[in-house]
């Protein structure tokens, strides 16, 4: 089938089919523009139309659930979190595409691969991951005579001084996905787990988690302001861009937004690798893929489209459009010039070295996803900073995690 693509003409049977792709509103809109451009190019090549529908990322789970339930809708979608596990028996195995694309690109990062590889095969192609570095305002740090923090304890120390200066730091402790991304990262750095490696036993109630929660409590009291309890995913971006905040744990989107809107603060914003803890540095970057529904009537076409997007020139153009927000899950692409070109991006690919899927050391699963979807970890911290004794907050979380684990999917 790849042959006719290479020849650049459509086979006789292709009568203007329509391939539909369900995706999110990218945080860097130029990335979606590029995607649509490539979709159109593919349409011309394969004599079909490609429709890319995008919605806000928080609306995707409900829509996907509806499509799975009604066995109709789009042909393929942007899978996030544990979607490949949640819909394991509804998704096409695309081992062939994964193997081909992976070979061309020097192999997949294992943390990205794990999110797509279920017991019954690859249920998606890793598409991109989003690095989660420290993002800070250099001017505020300079004024306080400080370097950027290399450890979470340093962040606490610096944060206290910065708050006194009128520039607190900010980590969301609320119902949003950034709150989880940071929690997992901090917890791993302190050596804490949420579930055991067997994937069945809650491990959140531990001495190490207690240290994490105590750290959060101190940070909340002395280095942050209560607004972190109300943030959505854009809350910390606004906080940094308003000029008030000095440090956040977030992808490069605030910097990109400042550049795009020509805000002078862009010059002051810089990034550094995610801080480390007693157990080293760890990161829980969002990992996204492309999956194809079994009910789709265009499975082969969808697979061709995925390969088309991974062609070197296309993938390059797409990374450039996102201005370093989209990280390739393929090892060969890590030295893409975009990261070398801007010194503020240079350290980003390094984040891959200590990234894990959520749930680690357990394998990813729908149950892990449920821990995030029900905001258990953020709520545990929120309860503690609001005055609940740490031990009680952890006991509460343990019960919630056990509930999430109970609902393990029966796949068959």
């Amino acid at each position, binding site marked *: 089938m790849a042959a006719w693509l290479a020849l650049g003409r459509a086979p006789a049977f292709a009568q203007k089919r329509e391939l539909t792709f369900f995706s999110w509103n990218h945080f860097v809109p130029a990335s979606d523009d590029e995607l649509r451009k490539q979709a159109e190019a593919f349409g011309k090549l394969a004599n079909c139309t490609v429709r890319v529908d995008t919605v806000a990322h928080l609306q995707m*789970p*409900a829509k*996907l*659930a509806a499509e*799975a*339930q009604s066995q109709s809708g789009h042909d393929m979608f942007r899978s996030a979190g544990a979607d490949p596990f*949640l*819909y*394991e*028996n*509804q998704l096409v195995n695309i081992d062939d595409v994964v193997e081909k694309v992976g070979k061309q690109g020097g192999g997949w990062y294992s943390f990205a691969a794990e999110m797509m590889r279920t017991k019954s095969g690859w249920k998606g192609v890793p598409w991109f991951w989003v690095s989660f570095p420290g993002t800070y305002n250099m001017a505020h740090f300079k004024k306080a005579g400080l370097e950027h923090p290399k450890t979470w304890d340093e962040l606490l120390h610096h944060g206290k001084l910065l708050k006194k200066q009128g520039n607190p730091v900010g980590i969301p402790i*609320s*119902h*949003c996905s950034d709150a989880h991304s940071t929690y997992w990262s901090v917890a791993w750095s302190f050596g804490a787990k949420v579930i055991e490696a067997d994937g069945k036993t809650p491990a959140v109630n531990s001495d190490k988690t207690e240290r994490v929660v105590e750290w959060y409590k101190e940070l909340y009291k002395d280095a942050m*302001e*209560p*607004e*972190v*309890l*109300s*943030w*959505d995913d854009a*809350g910390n971006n*606004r*906080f940094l861009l*308003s000029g*008030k905040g000095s440090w956040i744990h977030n992808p490069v989107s605030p910097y990109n937004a400042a550049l795009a809107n020509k805000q002078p603060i862009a010059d002051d914003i810089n990034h550094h690798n995610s801080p480390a803890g007693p157990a080293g540095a760890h990161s829980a970057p969002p990992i996204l893929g492309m999956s194809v529904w079994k009910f789709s009537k265009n499975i082969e076409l969808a697979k061709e489209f995925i390969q088309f997007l991974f062609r070197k020139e296309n993938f390059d153009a797409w990374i450039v459009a996102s201005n370093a927000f989209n990280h390739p899950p393929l090892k060969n692409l890590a030295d893409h010039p975009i990261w070398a070109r801007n010194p503020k991006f240079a350290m980003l690919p390094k984040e891959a070295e200590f990234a894990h899927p959520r749930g680690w050391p357990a394998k990813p699963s*729908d149950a892990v*996803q*449920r821990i995030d*979807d*029900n*905001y258990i970890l953020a*709520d545990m911290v*929120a*309860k503690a900073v*609001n005055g609940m004794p740490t031990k009680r907050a952890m006991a*509460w979380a343990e*019960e*919630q995690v056990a*509930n999430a684990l109970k*609902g393990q*999917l*029966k*796949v068959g």
Partner: protein
Amino acid sequence: MAVGHRALEIAGLPGPGRLARVREWWEQEHVFGYGLILPALVLLVCLVAYPFGMAIYFSLSDYWVGSPGGFVGLQNYRAILGNETFRQTVQNSFVFTAIALTLKAVLGVWLALLLVRRVRFKRLIRGAVLLPWVIPTALSTLGWWWMFDSLYSVVNWTAIHLGILSAPGPNWLGQSAYAMAAVITVNVWRGLPFFAITTLAGLVSIPREFDEAAEVDGAGPWARFRYVTLPLLKPVLAVVILFSTIFTFSDFNIVYVLTRGGPVNTTHLFATLAYQTGLQGGNLGQGAAISLCLFPLLATAVFFQLRYVRKD
């Protein structure tokens, strides 16, 4: 009424055509009557009864999104009753509904009494009052969300500049009590016009003579309201309160846009928790069970209020 074909035969006229026979059949009372109800019945079955039946079935099964489930009896209900988040949600829903409904009832009657007066631009004012009810909730709530924003809250800014609050002011959506106050405020803001305008319709239908007669007898404004207007308004109020109870209990948009149930689940309502559990979390069975918990509550409310209205 069509003439029966027997009559035609007797009269020696030619028998009716096929069309006429169909018409005759159609015009029989029992056929025609049901025929008229049929479209509404089809709509009700497809859009109300079927989803409702499915919801009940889901709530009794261990259905997960993307995975087939089987019948598990009341297990989902036992699971949610044992869950602290659910118990918190029940408490939130009652606090939210009780406060919002009381405010809407008091302010709504008050607003209606103001609107019934003869003032200039009466129509314009009455129209403007309806605006919050007319604007799509998701949009207007976004406006409120921005007003309650931790950094750019215009509410705090104004209050601080007027000297009512000391800087930096409350963190509206990040602290439990304030967050609840915020969602209640928006709900009252949105639901008030419905209350006021419906009550206004009730007020307008009260003959002025009663009021005038009471005034002649020496009743003051409060006494006229208490003993004349209010008793006559009762049936209308009962119906409005009934509807408002249902709308308030089952609110989703406001909480979803403002707090997504946070902080720490202290603003979750049945609908938002059901959405989080069933669709975001994929647990359709428990999600359905949570949303069905609304049903007995609302059914009881409907039962008592309708009985009260009939008794009057």
